[in-house]
């Protein structure tokens, strides 16, 4: 591409030649030809962008607010100099440059290598990709520039922050809520021996106690204790309305932090955690425990985006067969714009689930971006209070989560119900 300088030089050269011809001024024509010749010669000796780039990241997965260290190693494998070479690593706009620069201007000789180092802060969860690398090379006189890309990308996931909620007053009526995975004194699939009993048709052969059979002549089978853990269900509202507020502070953002923190808490306690995210459709992760499940939950939460308007009752109806009996259900929702909230929670509570509603106050989030008239704000708050009171009336434990309140503090506020 011609730069402005080259364009003016070219147009000036041609103009001088033409005007020189008009005025029969030889000197003018010589100047014009010199300009054009200068351009022509420089167009043949431009640099090149034939370079090799390797990007190294300090981590592929990190938590919201963490720093990411990036290093680019740039090598010129060609036998020519690159001339003026600009290298720019395309970083998502959602990431903040904390130190260093993702840009460098170099003139690499044959075989030379250089490095670009910079640190990014990731204030917003999500799935991101760093790259491609933009390259622009110019000739020595900055007359021509060419742009190209090195399609080298590095993917990373920024998980929502995980808060410490150990001290929070989170309770479940199920006995294993507090102790993690322990054996129940009831028979079932498990690892620990429970008792012996007589064989009944249908029992697998592998549980037959052959020694007892040899001793007694009767088929006796080993019964194991059921490894029962609490199944915790977390329902995250990712509907379009949940983006009320700023990008960093809105019901969905704080909701994902809450969901991740709860999941972390319960998985550490060796409970099984299931995650359901509903927006325009329902995404469900079956209850499970362990690091793998934890990673799945965090990855899923990293990718949620506000969209759609799926009603809560449709979610609870769809999941009714999957809910374990009596297991606690966390609903993280601003409870805005959904007329089915009350009947859905009434049904859940009616089926014996402990329903804990963590409701970020959308009206207060909205105040961060809109100047809500005082009267309207108070009325909106009253209406929200009515809604929460009604839900508490059905036995749900409701937490009205204000934007400036920490999650652990909010969880301590469970007082309704």
């Amino acid at each position: 591409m011609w730069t402005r300088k080259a364009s003016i030089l070219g147009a000036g050269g041609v103009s001088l030649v033409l005007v020189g011809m008009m005025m029969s001024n030889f000197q003018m024509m010589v100047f014009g030809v010199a300009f054009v010749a200068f351009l022509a010669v420089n167009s043949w000796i431009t640099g090149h962008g034939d370079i090799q780039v390797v990007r190294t990241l300090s981590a592929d997965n990190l938590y919201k607010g963490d720093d990411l260290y990036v290093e680019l190693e740039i090598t010129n494998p060609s036998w020519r100099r690159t001339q003026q070479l600009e290298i720019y690593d395309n970083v998502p706009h959602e990431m903040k440059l904390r130190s260093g620069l993702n840009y460098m201007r170099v003139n690499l000789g044959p075989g030379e290598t250089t490095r670009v180092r910079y640190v990014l802060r990731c204030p917003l969860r999500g799935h991101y990709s760093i790259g491609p690398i933009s390259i622009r090379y110019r000739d020595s006189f900055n007359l021509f520039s060419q742009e190209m890309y090195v399609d080298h990308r590095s993917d990373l996931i920024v998980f929502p922050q995980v808060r410490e909620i150990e001290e929070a007053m989170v309770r479940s009526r199920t006995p294993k809520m507090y102790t993690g995975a322990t054996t129940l004194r009831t028979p079932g699939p498990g690892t620990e021996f429970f008792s012996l009993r007589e064989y009944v048709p249908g029992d697998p052969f592998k549980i037959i106690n052959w020694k007892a059979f040899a001793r007694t002549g009767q088929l006796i089978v080993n019964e194991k204790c059921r490894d029962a853990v609490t199944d915790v269900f977390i329902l995250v509202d990712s509907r379009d309305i949940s983006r009320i507020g700023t990008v960093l502070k809105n019901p969905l953002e704080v909701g994902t932090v809450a969901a991740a923190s709860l999941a972390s808490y319960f998985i550490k306690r060796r409970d099984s955690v299931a995650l359901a995210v509903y927006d325009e459709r329902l995404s469900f992760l079956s209850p499970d425990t362990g690091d793998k499940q934890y990673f799945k939950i965090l990855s899923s939460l990293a990718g949620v985006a506000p969209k759609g308007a799926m009603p809560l009752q449709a979610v609870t109806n769809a999941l009714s067969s999957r809910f374990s009996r009596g297991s606690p259900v966390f609903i993280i929702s601003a409870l805005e714009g959904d007329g089915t909230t009350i009947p859905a929670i009434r049904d859940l509570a009616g089926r014996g689930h402990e329903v804990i509603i963590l409701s970020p106050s959308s009206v207060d989030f909205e105040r961060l971006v809109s100047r809500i008239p005082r009267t309207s704000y108070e009325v909106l708050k009253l209406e929200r209070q009515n809604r929460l009171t009604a839900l508490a009336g059905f036995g749900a434990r409701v937490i009205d989560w204000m934007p400036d309140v920490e999650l652990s503090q909010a969880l301590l506020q469970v007082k309704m119900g």
Partner: protein
Amino acid sequence: MAVPSLSGVGNWLRSPSGKRMVALSLFYLTLGLLFSTVAGTYITRSEVHQSAYGEDWNDMSAFRADIKNQGITTTSIVSSPLLLEEIQSPRDTVFVVSGIERDTISLPRFSADSSVIQLVEGLGYSTSEIDAISNFVERGGTIVVLDDFGYAQGLADEFGLGFSGHQLYDTQTWDPDLDFNYVWLNITNGFNYSTSSGSRTNTNPCIADEDSDGTPDFLEGIVVPTTEELGLCSHRWDSISATYNMDPGYDLLLNQPSAFDKGEAGENSDDNLYPIGFSTQDAYLDTNNDGKLTVGFSGTDAGSDEQGPFAMYVKYCRSRNCDNPDSGRAYFVTDGSLLVNSIYDTEGVESGAYGEFNKTPDINDNRRWALDLIAEALMSNDGNASISSDAQVIFDESRHQQPSFMGDTYNLLYYILIYFTNDWMAMLLMFLGLFVLFEFIIIKKLDPEPWRHVFSIIYYGYGDSRRYEYYGRANKIKQILLTRVRNVNSLTREEFDALPARDLQKMVDDPVLIKFIFEDRRYSMEEMIAVIKRIKTWGRR
């Protein structure tokens, strides 16, 4: 070398770079087709003739060789006669136009007459070119215009002449050895400019003989002149008989000649326009263009051809009777093939230099006439036959088909360049174009933006401000108050709806709120705020 797979090619075609490459290829293909279509009209080789640089029988290489042998520079103009303006010594220059085969390309121009804008130019040359040629003659240059049915009309108009554009048949002077297309133009004295001027042979240095001793002035006292002494008049010297030809007359052989319009080629001393060569009285112009000689009564019968005599060779001089040797001259002959090799170079024809001919033309004076006018134009009158070092003969090739590949395209481009730097209307347009180009570059041509990372997540948010007004209405507040009352009292919607007003008043137990519930009126802002405060505190008691 790895052969790309079909799917790989398909993927590449679907990629942005592939699409861009395909789009670019199609663009350049279309551009190439357009260009080749336009250029093709110029690339197509057609029969080349009357070119000073061609060696064929119908070219003029023999004439050019004669001039070169006399030590005169020969060159050509392939772009436009506008370049004649640049010639520094027009007095030493002869411009030869032989056959104008192409019309001009030009822009509309403002004119000084009532039409204001002249959309169509004259034939052959643009007005600027004709002005350039005319100025060239005014500055002392010599032009030779040989044309019959071509585009010389525009140039002839400038000198007060009119080409008839019809073929001339002369029943008296056609050449029976060849055919009726060959006509002799017999001129007894080529220097009788007017009926009153008498013979003005002194205007031509080759036959200027002031003392009438039969020896030209520049050879006075020389018995056997050398080639140097003969100079530009060497063609009149017969080395075998050692005699110098002093004949002022010419027998010119023409091929398919035309003639000037009768009314426009009369002797006109005021305009210094001198018709010198005429057809016979029995010559006819094929005015009905039937290709035949159709004789009528004095040419007045409808459908008959016009009868002669017609002027066929006209000389124009800037000075009266061409007395001033330094003044400009213009020679017009109504035959474009007067100097073609097959007629001009009879010796070459006989020796087979131009191929085999069924019939060979007779010896004629075309060569002597042509070289006489060259001598008249370029030879100094200082008593010897020397010529200026700047002497040159320029052939106009700008209106001829070119034999070389892309020659015509090159000529066209060169013509456009010369035209746009010499014609004032074109110059004006070009200035405008350059101005617009510079404006465009300065305004539109931007250097690539410097790359900079922009962190941009904090500047947008989302809220629903449309509902605020709705939530400020009394009815909405009333509805919220009633819902609050219903929730606090743990009533279902049905139970609450069935509740008598008295019971509701008891439940509310606040006169202000009861009034608010039951009274339907407009509230001021202050009243509304007071009511909301009461609702907030209600139920906590």
